[in-house]
């Protein structure tokens, strides 16, 4: 009777233990399978396609053609530079706009803090293609903004904003503004107000409080914001197509054109892969410095 009791107790415990051990893997399985199938595996096909040669009509074959890389880089080096230039400038502009605003909301907006945050995020509810188009209308050479200024002779009549790198950069900063604002706001919000009070009690001026207490504590958010903004801005091509002009093409547009228009899949894949490797290098450097945990927490 005692033996029977022991056996009866052991079996469910084993099942439960097995279940508990397998639980994380079962939970993770669907999501990770999806990511492997539609994220990692396509990147592999991209890499393989970049080593092919041929043309659309007769088909492409894998010929280990590394020449696509050298050819692509030689041909489109300027466009990579444009992407980096505009991406960095746009991120900087977004930072300069976002940080003081986030700071003001966190520390000076009082009870209306969440209302202000909501107000700041509301415009991004509308499709970004529409918003960029509206900028195009607003910034037209003889549009609602520049037109009256020109008739009042406040600016020269051949002045223009559209079809210049400035338009593209500000357009990028605008489109990806929330990616900069939210992480910075999140990390500013987490700062213990008592530290600020303590600094002020120690006779620190407002500026010193920011410089020596607030800003250093918000750095994780700043870096998350920089990363989350910098990467999509470098890759974007919609802003540049709508707001840019001759000589402002970014590598994203070249890749898209090579895929869609020229159907030169190997060259396009090579260009895309180089771009991805560059970003990956940046990401690894970031991870080395701050670790992915910071990125997760700062959100």
């Amino acid at each position, binding site marked *: 009777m005692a033996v029977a009791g022991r056996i009866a107790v052991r079996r469910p415990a084993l099942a439960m233990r097995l279940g508990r051990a397998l639980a994380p893997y079962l939970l993770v399985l669907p999501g990770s399978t999806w990511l492997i199938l539609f994220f990692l595996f396509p990147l592999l*096909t991209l890499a*393989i*396609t970049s080593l*092919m040669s041929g*043309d*659309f*009509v*007769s*088909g*492409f*074959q*894998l010929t280990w053609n590394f020449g696509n890389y050298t050819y692509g880089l030689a*041909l*489109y080096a*300027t*466009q990579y530079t444009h992407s980096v230039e505009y991406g960095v400038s746009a991120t900087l502009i977004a930072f300069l706009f976002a940080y003081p605003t986030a700071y003001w909301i966190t520390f000076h907006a009082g009870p209306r803090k969440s209302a202000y945050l909501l107000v700041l995020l509301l415009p991004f509810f509308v499709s970004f293609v529409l918003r960029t188009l509206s900028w195009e209308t607003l910034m*037209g*050479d*003889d549009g609602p903004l520049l037109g009256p200024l020109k008739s009042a002779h406040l600016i020269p009549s*051949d002045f*223009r904003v*559209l*079809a210049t790198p400035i338009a593209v950069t500000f357009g990028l900063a605008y489109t990806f503004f929330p990616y900069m604002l939210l992480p910075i706001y999140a990390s500013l919000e987490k700062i213990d107000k008592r530290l600020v009070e303590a600094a002020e009690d120690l006779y620190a001026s407002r500026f010193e409080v920011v410089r020596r207490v607030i800003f250093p504590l918000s750095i994780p958010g700043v870096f998350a914001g920089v990363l989350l903004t910098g990467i999509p801005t470098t890759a974007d091509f919609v802003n540049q197509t709508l707001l*840019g*002009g*001759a*000589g402002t*093409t970014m590598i994203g*547009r*070249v890749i898209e*054109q090579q*895929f*869609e*228009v*020229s*159907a*030169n*899949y190997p060259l396009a894949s090579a260009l895309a892969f180089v771009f991805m490797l560059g970003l990956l290098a940046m990401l690894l450097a970031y991870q080395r410095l701050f670790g992915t945990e910071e990125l997760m927490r700062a959100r």
Partner: protein
Amino acid sequence: MTRDRDLPESLDAAWLRGLTQTRITRRTALAGAGALSLSAFLAACGIGGTQQNAVSHQNWVWDKATKAGTLDFANWPLYIDTAEDSAGNTTYPSLVEFTKQTGIKVNYSEPIQDNAEFFAKIAPQLQAGSAIGYDIIVVTNGIQLTNLMAKHWLTELDPTKLSNFFQNGSKRVLNRSFDAGNRFTIPWQSGFTGIAYNTKKISREINSYNDLYDPAFKGKVGMFTNTQDTGNLTLLGMGIKPQNSKPSDWQKAANKLKGLRDSGILRKFYDQSYIKALSAGDTVISMAWSGDVYQANLSAENTDLKFLLPKEGGVIWTDNMCIPLGAAHPLDAITYMNYVYDPKVAAQLAEAINYITPVSTAKAVVEQDAAAAPDAATRDSLQATANSSAVFPSDADLANTSYYRELNPTESTQWNDIFNAVILS
């Protein structure tokens, strides 16, 4: 009679070797080469005629095709006559007429904005062997049409069902070099690529390609992103006949464009939105398509914009109707294709679209409509259409135009790379 299709490689151990390799048989290679190379030009002269007859039909569906009563027609925007009904919805009078005459209902859509873009959208489906959901598509002669034919993604047309076309189609459109014997395509409309400018902003006379390079228009000049339009017009502007040009000529043309860009005279390389920029005043002079200017003036209710062919020569292209592989209603499609070659229908379309109609006898019909017009404004406008060299060009006009340089796949990659280096920069 067998369907010549490229089947996708099945997943097996050799997948690494030939992921997108198509099966090339001798027959498809011959037909492909025939469509691509300059020998097709010879074919128009009659040598290739016999050669074509020797090749069996491709995608021949006419033995089994029956009238379905419905038709899916994919076209470019603003490329058909339109009217507004009482509720403010858009209707297409010529299509309504067609339905009345034949009982075939037309599902009209305008998904085609750009040949390459549209081709990129339908290519994966056609490659997989599935239908794209359209019975008629309109594609310009060029790299994409060549590819469509080379990959056997078009249904061969039955000449016996196109009596109107062979009877009324003007000399120019019959038997073009890019589709000898009109086996797969018949023209929808043709058009010129030339120069358009705003007469209110530019007071002097414009007549040359090099007017686009005038420093007086700094920052207000537009060119096309389309490598074929920009490349060919530039070659003509430099006095080089596109058909005889070599890659070294292409490089010279690209360098000339590079100079235009670097000097700041060029504002932007535009797609079809060039006409919006011209209307808005962002550009004052631009490369343009003939019919767009007419539409823009109509839309703005003025005649500020003017189109002209540069004296060095303009480019002419043809938008062609074709039936893609797997079309569900081919008989209805070919009935419509034949319908538009009726001079009355052609006139109706020409009056609305204002591009080069493929039926030259439509001119007489337009003049009749002008004479019968209810008021002076309509009569003047119709008469202007009848007299317009952009709708009914004379032989002299046509003599000064050139088709796109024909490119085989290797050449087209080279052409694209040379010009994209400037356009996409």
